[in-house]
């Protein structure tokens, strides 16, 4: 049995494999928690509160359940999890190919070959930045940075920054780059607006308590859409402040519509900004209404809170001359995608996503963990791995038992 990747997902798989005494190794190209060591910016904190930073057999035991971990603290957490669960990790072992062979899989690594009956792919959902094709039309005088390379505002050129995308990454980077004194323009497409706290509690407490996180993949109305949902506009800070578009506008960030094209060296933005604001406001209201409903049904005190609509700027720019020097850097906060170039089994769809049913990949004996809404809405989150890994490893154990 081979598990690919020693992030929290691969280690959770290992935890449940060990519990079932299934012999396995965890192959990791870098170190344990590699993506938290190498692929996160300096200031990053989790947007999920500490009490949710729990892994199988490792509940949060610290003194600050409502705080948010730094990337360094997540590394410590994942390291501790690897140690406590005695995961058989082989670090520095890059998987370069997995192919199907009679009765199982052939795994080629930078340190040799392995034959095995089953493989769990836990190599992460965010290996590569998803950068749109328009990036190719950006003039060479403008620097382009992805979140995987971005470190801190100080490393950017002086001058204006165009941040593209208003999900968690985009709003967080726009905010800190603006705070460094640089003029920031934020290009906003469809997004998920959330307040940091609601009725005195973390918004993610409500998601948890009301069962939204636990909603299963086979209960979700439109699974394709749910799997493509951008991350919410949330940031974990000691102040527990809300970082929505109103907060950014108040900080002096200029909002423009979705970046649609580059023509004659000019960036052209959509004029549909008002509607993406309405869509996000309406969705947030609907979600808060379900929390109020849940609170009423469960006898919670307090009354509904409502937030000001996203303010539409008096006028928004529809174009911006990329050659004028106004913008020195473009930050592509347009999402991430997995990298399966090493996977020589035909289970990847034309959009680069694995074809799977709740983590059972289309090829027997091949499994996945840590992908968006893999089995539940919480699947990609740290606190979401326990239920998913337990289910997926149970399926895998059943498969091995039948095939013995």
């Amino acid at each position, binding site marked *: 049995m081979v598990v690919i990747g020693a992030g929290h997902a691969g280690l959770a798989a290992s935890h449940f494999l060990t519990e079932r005494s299934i012999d396995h190794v965890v192959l990791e190209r870098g170190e344990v928690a590699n993506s938290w060591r190498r692929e996160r910016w300096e200031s990053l904190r989790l947007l999920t509160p500490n009490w949710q930073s729990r892994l199988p057999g490792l509940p949060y035991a610290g003194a600050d359940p409502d705080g948010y971990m730094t990337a360094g603290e997540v590394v410590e957490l994942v390291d501790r999890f690897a140690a406590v669960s005695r995961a058989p990790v082989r670090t520095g072992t890059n998987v370069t190919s997995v192919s199907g062979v009679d009765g199982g899989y052939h795994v080629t690594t930078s340190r040799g070959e392995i034959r095995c009956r089953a493989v769990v792919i836990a190599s992460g959902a965010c290996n590569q930045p998803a950068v749109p094709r328009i990036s190719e039309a950006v003039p060479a005088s403008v620097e382009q940075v992805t979140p995987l390379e971005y470190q801190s505002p100080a490393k950017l050129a002086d001058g204006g920054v165009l941040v593209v995308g208003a999900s968690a990454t985009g709003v967080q980077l726009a905010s800190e780059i603006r705070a460094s004194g640089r003029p920031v323009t934020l290009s906003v497409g*469809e997004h998920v607006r959330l307040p940091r706290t609601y009725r005195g509690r973390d918004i993610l407490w409500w998601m948890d308590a009301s069962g939204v996180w636990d909603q299963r993949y086979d209960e979700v109305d439109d699974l394709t859409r749910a799997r493509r949902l951008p991350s919410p506009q949330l940031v974990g800070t000691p102040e527990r402040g809300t970082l929505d578009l109103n907060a950014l506008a108040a900080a002096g960030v200029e909002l423009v*519509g*979705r970046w*649609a*094209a580059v*023509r004659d060296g000019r960036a*052209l933005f*959509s*004029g*549909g900004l008002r*509607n993406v604001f*309405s*869509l996000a406001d*309406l969705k947030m*209201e*609907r979600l808060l209404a379900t929390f109020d409903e849940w609170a009423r049904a469960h006898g919670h005190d307090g009354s509904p809170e409502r937030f000001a609509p996203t303010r539409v700027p008096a006028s928004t720019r529809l174009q911006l001359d990329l050659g004028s020097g106004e913008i020195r850097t473009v930050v592509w906060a347009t999402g991430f995608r997995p990298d399966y170039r090493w996977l020589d089994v035909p289970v990847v769809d034309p959009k680069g996503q694995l074809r799977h049913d709740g983590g059972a990949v289309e090829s027997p004996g091949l499994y996945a963990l840590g992908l968006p809404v893999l089995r539940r809405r919480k699947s990609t989150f740290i606190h979401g791995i326990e239920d998913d890994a337990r289910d997926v490893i149970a399926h895998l154990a059943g498969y091995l038992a039948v095939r013995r």
Partner: protein
Amino acid sequence: MTTVDNGVNVQALLDARKVLAGAPEAAQFTWRASSKWQNGVHSTTTVEKFFGLGQEQAHKSEAVFDADHPEVFAAEDNGITPIEYLLVGLAACLTAGVASVAQNRGIQLRSVESTVEGQHDIRGILGVDSDVRNGFNDIKVTFKIDADASPQDIEALVAQSQKRSAVFDALTNPTNVTVEVA
């Protein structure tokens, strides 16, 4: 429970969505119009045939549209101004969207009315000031909807209809346009 009927065959649309997900070629449509100059700034444009679902298609009958300019432009006013056709397209598209989304969400509509206003500074097209653009500066659509739904659900209908509107997209996002002489 009464069944909702806005006259939209949502099942057919949902079925088409499923089929086309696996057959992107069939989803490629070409819409066409042919125009002929009459006299002055008056032209006549006809629309009949189009391509879609892998083959040539046609409307039940040919439609003819006259475009001209009003008398204040010193024209004969044989038809509406070309830029007004954009308003016609936008209103019609959003209205169709409202009806479809309402049907899909089980909302019975009683009436849907809208007005569309496009702000246009004609100094652009007249070449008075090269800083003024030729097209609309701003378009405002106001819906009046009577339906079995909360004000919030009605807002959501209108928002979703914009999200799925071809004309809203065509107006708010740039499109490559090639004009050639054959």
